[in-house]
């Protein structure tokens, strides 16, 4: 079955050796990505399309002195590989000197990743169709319209260079999301999940959650836009909190073009930026959110604390900027994020609100002002009014203009963190574990008629 194909460690070592043997540059780095992807889409209660593909690509990065060129190809025979190396070397020689060029790293040691699951790698089209049916059939029986998407990835990455560095890791990932709508289009509910392991997903339960939200969200009423106390379900929290870590780049901060720039120069490391209950970490060995154990240039990635008790603990430093600033390099690319939480359930959080809004998830989230990490976007597929500690009715969707920084400063309470599907496109995306939160003065700026 195609679904289980990803190049093994020995195969990658042999391929890298073949490519390096053809190299004449001062330094050469070979990156190999291989893997299979499978997907099944369903719409209007039936499977609409699907796809299975396998690809393996080699990236050759050649450096002469401070001149570098990169060539990527998916043709792996000897002649094509040699041609790719020769082209990368030609590009490098034509490239001007890069004053910021850093030498390749020597051999490193890496933690061994545990993010591979055979249950995901072996999922075939009929198993995917069964998962889809576990959602479409109950939806059809309930007179509702289900649409959704199941994607699996099983892939391996290897980095090797002419100084003897070799890193290899393989991972699986999958996501299942569904949007269930009422026949008349006045109600819509969403549920989604991601994991590295298909066995941890329950398609029927996920469908039932979306069906329940679709039914409860019919005939929404308009509320006045303005500042509200909100309960954000974990997906909505994940949708926004990921942008904080994405902005935590030391160089942009030091150059004065980031929220993390300090007034008068420098950056905000050591400064309190959000509520002291908030800690943000990324750990590639987090059993609920496995990530990458090495970066594109072969640096080992270990557990990193970005914000600790509300204070900026670290910013990401590339190797050049770290050297220039006299810091240790810190890669950003773990692909995982965890936010600390509390012990309350979503229902308990709701019970503490006199008047507010419950948000299932956000949509079409786009940057507006990088000075404050301000984003705009809309609520979608399950937005409800809370009155005197209870959900009383569905409300129309609202557009927000808000920063996750302000949101976490206005924090009132947090629930239990869970793994969420926080990628808008419904793919596996980053592995994110976040709590539901209660926060005040969340800024909604207009109403939307969209259901």
């Amino acid at each position: 079955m195609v679904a289980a194909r990803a190049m093994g460690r020995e195969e990658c070592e042999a391929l890298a050796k073949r490519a390096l043997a053809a190299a004449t540059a001062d330094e050469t780095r070979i990156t190999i990505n291989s893997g299979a992807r499978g997907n099944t889409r369903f719409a209007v209660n039936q499977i609409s399309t699907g796809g299975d593909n396998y690809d393996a690509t080699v990236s050759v990065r050649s450096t002469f002195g401070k001149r570098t060129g990169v060539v990527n190809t998916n043709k792996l025979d000897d002649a094509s590989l040699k041609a790719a190396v020769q082209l990368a070397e030609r590009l490098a020689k034509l490239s001007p000197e890069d004053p910021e060029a850093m030498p390749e790293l020597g051999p490193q040691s890496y933690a061994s990743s545990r993010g591979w699951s055979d249950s995901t790698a072996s999922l075939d089209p009929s198993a995917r169709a069964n998962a889809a049916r576990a959602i479409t059939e109950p939806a059809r029986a309930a007179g509702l319209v289900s649409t959704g998407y199941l994607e699996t990835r099983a892939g391996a990455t290897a980095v090797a260079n002419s100084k003897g560095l070799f890193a290899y890791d393989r991972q699986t990932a999958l996501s299942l999301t569904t949007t269930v709508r009422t026949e008349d289009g006045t109600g819509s509910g969403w549920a989604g999940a991601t994991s590295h392991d298909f066995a941890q997903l329950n398609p029927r339960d996920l469908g039932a959650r979306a069906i329940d939200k679709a039914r409860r969200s019919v005939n929404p009423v308009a509320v006045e836009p303005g500042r509200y106390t909100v309960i954000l379900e974990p997906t909505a929290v994940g949708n926004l909190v990921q942008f904080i870590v994405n902005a935590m780049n030391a160089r942009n901060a030091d150059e004065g073009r980031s929220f993390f720039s300090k007034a008068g120069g420098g950056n905000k490391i050591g400064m309190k930026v959000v509520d002291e209950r908030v800690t943000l970490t990324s750990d590639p060995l987090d059993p609920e959110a496995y990530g990458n154990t090495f970066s594109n240039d072969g640096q080992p990635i270990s557990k990193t604390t970005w914000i600790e008790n509300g204070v900026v603990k670290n910013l990401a430093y590339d190797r050049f900027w770290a050297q220039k600033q006299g810091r240790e390099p810190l890669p950003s690319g773990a692909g995982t994020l965890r936010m600390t939480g509390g012990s309350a359930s979503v229902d308990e959080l709701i019970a503490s609100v006199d008047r507010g809004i419950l948000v299932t998830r956000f949509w079409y989230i786009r940057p507006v002002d990088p000075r404050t990490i301000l984003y705009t976007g809309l609520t979608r597929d399950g937005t409800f009014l809370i009155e005197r500690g209870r959900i009383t009715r569905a409300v129309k969707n609202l557009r927000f203009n808000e920063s996750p920084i302000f949101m976490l400063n206005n924090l009132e309470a947090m629930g239990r963190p869970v793994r969420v599907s926080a990628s808008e496109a419904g793919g596996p995306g980053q592995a994110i574990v976040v709590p539901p939160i209660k926060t005040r003065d969340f800024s909604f700026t207009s109403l939307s008629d969209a259901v």
Partner: protein
Amino acid sequence: MLALDAARSAGAEYADVRISRNRVQSINTRERRVQGLSDNETFGFGVRTLVGGAWGFAASSDLTRDEVARIARQAAAQAKANRAAQVRPVVLAPAPATKEGKWRGPAKLDPFDIAIEEKVALLLSANEAALKVQGSRFVNSAMFFLREEKTYANSDGSFTEQMIYRASPTMTVTAVSSDSSDFQSRQSTDIAPMGRGWEHVLDSKLVENAPRWAEEAVQKLSAKPVEVGRYDLVLHPTHLGLTIHESIAHPTELDRVYGYEANYAGTSFVAPPEKMLGKFKYGPEFMNIQGDRSQDGSLAACGWDDDGVQPETFLIIKNGIVHDYQTTREQANWLDWWYKQQKLPTRSHGCSYAQSWADVQFQRMPNVSLLPGEQNLKWEDLIAATDRGIAIVGDGSFSIDQQRYNAQFGGQLFYEIRGGKITGMLKDVAYQMRTPEFWNAMDMMGGKDSYWLWGAFGDAKGQPSQSNAVSHGCPPTRHRQINVINTGRRA
């Protein structure tokens, strides 16, 4: 042909195969250095099959006889698995077969024939020109080129070969205030990506334009924060292309209208078609929206779509009223009743597209353009006719809901208009709109001499998300009394 034969013997009533070789080159610079120089090639094939009215698709980069046959059988087996949950089988609208078709994009100079040194030197001189401007601190510039060689065949007898080019030069200049309390950027949105070759880079005059972009970034630092309220907006084509893309092109995709994209891209307010076609007033009578894949140098231009259909030019909005939707062979039959009523043939408009050999094709937008007005008005004429308003140049931040009603757009440059004149620069401007009200509030538009082709390079739709490239032509327009917010929050 081997793939089509293997698919048919595995039970497919229809099959098609796409083989493509994509070559991509990108060069990225900042200030006085080249950050990245890369050349990518990907080659592979994908087979799509229809078995009992259900689709299957499989793809591989290994173009050997055995693998081609195996992938074709796999696509057929997947279609059979997908059929299990079927409610309504897929029926393709008829399309004439093209026996041997060849098409080549209008590139005069193949970007892959141009020396790297020339490309690098051009970017670095443009950066230098921007950095000479007092107050400009950072500059990023880039070039991106694509050449796709695509061969397509289907079991109806079509066989086509196409060569598609795309070129995108870009620059962003950032200015930082002396006390580090503010920073502002200007992106080169007055240069659109196009379906052309190296000549598009030369025509873009990066070195000549760079000082202006830098000056505008610096000016933004001292621009006046906008006062919230309702304003008449005069929108430049370099800005309006994106608004058309989001608020007209997306909601008239027929798969969205029928709920096929509800889980990601969303549905559409332009639904159901029975209540919209020939009835719904999208905008004023002088508003005409055209779909096509033929405008010279446009990003969606091609000879045949990924269903093997030769695209046609069609009106989506005619005299302000919804007239048609974007379709593929699978979807054209859904509007059979309307085409019969209009005495038009039921045929696909040619809107099938896949981003690469590894992805399945589906309905994607063609170029969707606002046709210019009969009076040959210009940008300056619209400003001169406006008493109190804001002129917006270049596209910026954007967001729109899943049915394409409520949108918010920023921009690159904002100018205050008072008494028919530009009186100064504004910042932190975004407008919020409800699509039908926004287009019905349009009361002026420019003529053919002010028509300009904007381009979107990374339009995302589908699951897995696929990227499409399209152009949107338009003249400048004026919209009365639109809600403007100030986005410059401090807490």
